[in-house]
C-alpha cells in the first residue's frame, strides 16, 4: 500500500517521514522519526503515556493519524530540555521524586507543560484536572501534582519558601 509523505516540525526542527495507511502518530514518531520519548501504554487512548503537544495542545498520539500532523508543530518530552538546561518541570519532577519507573513520565510532562504554557499559576485542582487523562501506577499522583505546582511557582522564590 502506498505510503504518505509527512513533513512537520518536531520540537522546533523539521521532520519528514513516510506514514503507512492508518499509522498512528505514536508509531510514526517512534519508528519513523526515531523519537522514543512517547510511550505505548494502551493504544486505545486511555492511559496518556503517549501524550504529545500538537500546536501546543495535548493529544494522545496513539489516536492521531500520522498524516494529520502535516505542516503542524509537534512537541514531545524528548524536546523539553534546552541542551543541558532542563525545563522547570523536569527539574521539579526530579527533585520531587515524581517519577518511579518512568514510563508515564513523558506523557505526564507533556500534559503538565500544556497546562503551564497556558496557565502559569494553576490551582491544585487545575493541575489535577490537567493530568486526569494520564495514568501512573508507581508514584502515586501526589508527588506529581506537587512537582507541577512547584514548577509553576518556580519563578517566584518568595512564595516557594513559604
Amino acid at each position, binding site marked *: 500500500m502506498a505510503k504518505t509523505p509527512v513533513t512537520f516540525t518536531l520540537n522546533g526542527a523539521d521532520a519528514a517521514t513516510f506514514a*503507512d495507511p*492508518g499509522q498512528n502518530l505514536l508509531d510514526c514518531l517512534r*519508528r519513523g522519526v*526515531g523519537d*522514543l*520519548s*512517547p*510511550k*505505548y*501504554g*494502551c*493504544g*486505545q487512548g*486511555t*492511559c496518556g*503515556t503517549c501524550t504529545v503537544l500538537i500546536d501546543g495542545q495535548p493529544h494522545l498520539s496513539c489516536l492521531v493519524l500520522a498524516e494529520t500532523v502535516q505542516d503542524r508543530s509537534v512537541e*514531545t*518530552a*524528548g524536546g*523539553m*530540555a534546552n541542551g543541558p538546561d*532542563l525545563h522547570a*518541570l*523536569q527539574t521539579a*519532577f*526530579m*527533585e520531587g*521524586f515524581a*517519577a518511579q*519507573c*518512568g*514510563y*508515564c*513520565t*513523558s506523557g505526564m*510532562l507533556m500534559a503538565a507543560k500544556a497546562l503551564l504554557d497556558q496557565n502559569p499559576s494553576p490551582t491544585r485542582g487545575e493541575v489535577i484536572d490537567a493530568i486526569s487523562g494520564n*495514568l*501512573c*501506577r*508507581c508514584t502515586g499522583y*501526589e508527588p506529581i501534582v506537587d512537582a507541577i505546582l512547584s514548577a509553576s511557582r518556580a519563578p517566584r522564590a518568595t512564595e516557594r519558601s513559604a
Partner: protein
Amino acid sequence: MPVEFRKDLFADERDDNLAEIGKPHIRQDILGHVTGRTPFYDDHLFDGLLHMRCLRSPHHHARIRSVDASAAEIAPGVVRVIRPSDVPVNMNTLLSLLNFGRDDEPLLSPDKVAYKGEPVLAVLATSERAARDAVAQVRVDWEVLPHVLDVEEALRPEAPVVNETYPGNAFDYHEKYDHQKLRFGDVTAALVQADHVVEGEYQMSPIEQAPMETCGAIAAPETNDRFVCYTSTQALFFSLGTAAKQTGLASSRLHFIGGTVGGGFGGKVDSHHEPLAILGALLSGRPVKYQWDRAEEMQVGAPRGGERWRLKDGVMNDGRIIARELTGFFDAGAYTRLSSYAVQKSTGHLPGPYTIPNVASNVYCVYTNRTPSTAMRGFGITGVDFAIECHMDKVAEAVGMDPIELRILNAYRDGDMKAHRRVAKNCALIESCQVAAQKSGWSLSSDALAASSMRDGGIGWRGQIPETMIDEDGRIGDRKRIWATPEPTAASGPHRAVAAGTANEHPATGAAPQRDDMIIEAERLGFKVSEDAPGSEAQSVPEPRSAATPHEPARRHVNGGPSLPPAARPTTHSAPAVPVAARPAQPAPTSIADDAKPSDPPPTVAPADQPIEPGSRPPRRPGASRFISGSRGRR
C-alpha cells in the same frame, strides 16, 4: 509530605548517627525518565523487525481437535507460523529452576487449553497488523470442555481436571501433600475452652498488576552466534534460565538485557515472552518483537491470585485469642507459576502478627480455569492479612472490645514463640497501633498505652512450643493420595485420588487415622470418600457443616484399627495446651453449640493422664521430632 521519624521509639536499639537516612536524595535514574531517554525494552529499534502475535483460546477449557493455519501461512506479510511442535521444550514451570514443582505449562498449547487466552500458535509477520490479520484467519476446531472457576468446586470429585499434571486440582507439596499444613498446640481443645468462637470467611479478588508498560521482549540474532534479548522482565535470570530451557539453547548463547521495567508489581516474572521471541528469532533469523497489547495485559497477564480464607477464633472474655484455625484456598488459575510458593509464604505468615498458643491451618494451592496467577506485591501475605485483620475487627466486636486494644493485647512481643516455631524479634505492632491511635485521635486505655513490644514477651507459655500432635513419622501432616494401584492410569481416573486431607482413611494408604483435628474440611470428607472407596465402609456422608469445623468430622477407620464410637472420640485429644490448662475450664459457648448436632456430646478435654485410645498415638513432646524441633529458633 515530609517523612516523620519517631526517634523516641526503640531509641536504644538504633544508631541515629546515619549519613543518608532521613535526607532527600534524587534517584540516580530519574534524569533519563524526565528527558524521555530511559531505554525500556521497546525503545530499541531494529531493521527488519518482525512482530509476533498469538492465537489465543476463546474458551475457559477446551480440547483442540485440529488447527488449520494454512490461510495464515500465505497471508500478506506472514513470515512464519510457530506451532507447539516447533518449541524444543514445550513444558515448563517457572520454579523448576529451583526444583520446585513439576513442569505443567506449555509455551504453546498442543492439545488442550485450560484458561481463556491461553496461546495455541504464534504468527510472525512484517507488521503487527499483518500478524493480527493472519491470526484471525487461523481456524481451530475446539471441543469445549466443562470448566471450573471456583476453588472449592475445583476440589470436588466431579470437577473437571484443569491441569493434568496435578489431576486432583491441587499442587503437590513434596509429592505427598495436597496442601500446606500448620499445627501448633491443640486448637480443638482450646476452642472448647474459649468464651467465644468467632468464625468468618473472606474472599479476595484476583488483581491485575496493570503496569503502564505491557509485558514484552525483543530478540535478535547477534553477529557472534548469540541472541540478544531486550526484555521487560523483573526477573532477568529467571527469564534467561527459562528461555535457555525452552529453546534448547545454551544460556551462554543468550544475551539478556533488562534493568528498565515500566512498572512490574510482580506481573513481569513469568518469562513467557523471552523464550517465544528468541524462538522466533531462531526460526526466522530476524529480530522479533513479542509484545502484549493492553487487552492481553489485562486478560492474559497473570494477576494476583484470588484467595478464600475461613477463620475460626477461640477468644476469652478479656480479648485474649487462645485458638485460631484457618483454611485457605489460593486460586492458582490453570497453571502453577508462583502460586505454590505463595501458599508456603501465607502459611509461614500465620496466624498473623499475634501470639496465639493454638494454631491450625490447611492451605491449598488450587487449579481452576482462571488466568494463571503469579506474583504481585506481597502475594500470599496480603490476602491472608486482609482476612486476618477483617477478622480481628469481628473478634473485637464479638467481645465488645476496642479493635486497636484487641490487637495490642494479642500482638507479638519480642521473645514470643511463633506458630512456625521461630522466636519473634524486633516486634513493633504495639507501637504502630499506639502511634496510629494517637495520630487519629483515638483514645486508648492506660494499659494499652503502657504496653510495649519489648516487655512481657517470651514469658512462660509465650516462649514455648506447645504440645502438638504428630504422626508416627514425626510429621504434623497426613500424607495424601497414595494410589491404590501402581499404575495410576489403570481404571482410575484423576478423581480416584484420595480426598484432600483424608489420605489416611483411604483403603490404599494403610496408615492408621490421625486425630480428628488433622482434618479441617469435614464437609469434603464425606462425598469424596464415598466416591473414592467403593466397597469400603467409608460411605457415610456427614451433615454438611462449616469447612472450618474440625472437631467432629464423621469418619470411619477403613483400614485397620477399630472404629471408635463417637462418644469415645474426644478422649483421644491430647493434654490441653499449656495456656489453656492454666485457666479454669469454661462451658462450651453457644457458638460451638450451634455447630454441634444435638446428638453429639459436647467435646471435652481429657486430662493429661487419660489412657490413649488404641489406634492413636500419644502426643509427642516438643523437640522429639526432627520436623517440629524448635531448637534453631529458640533462645
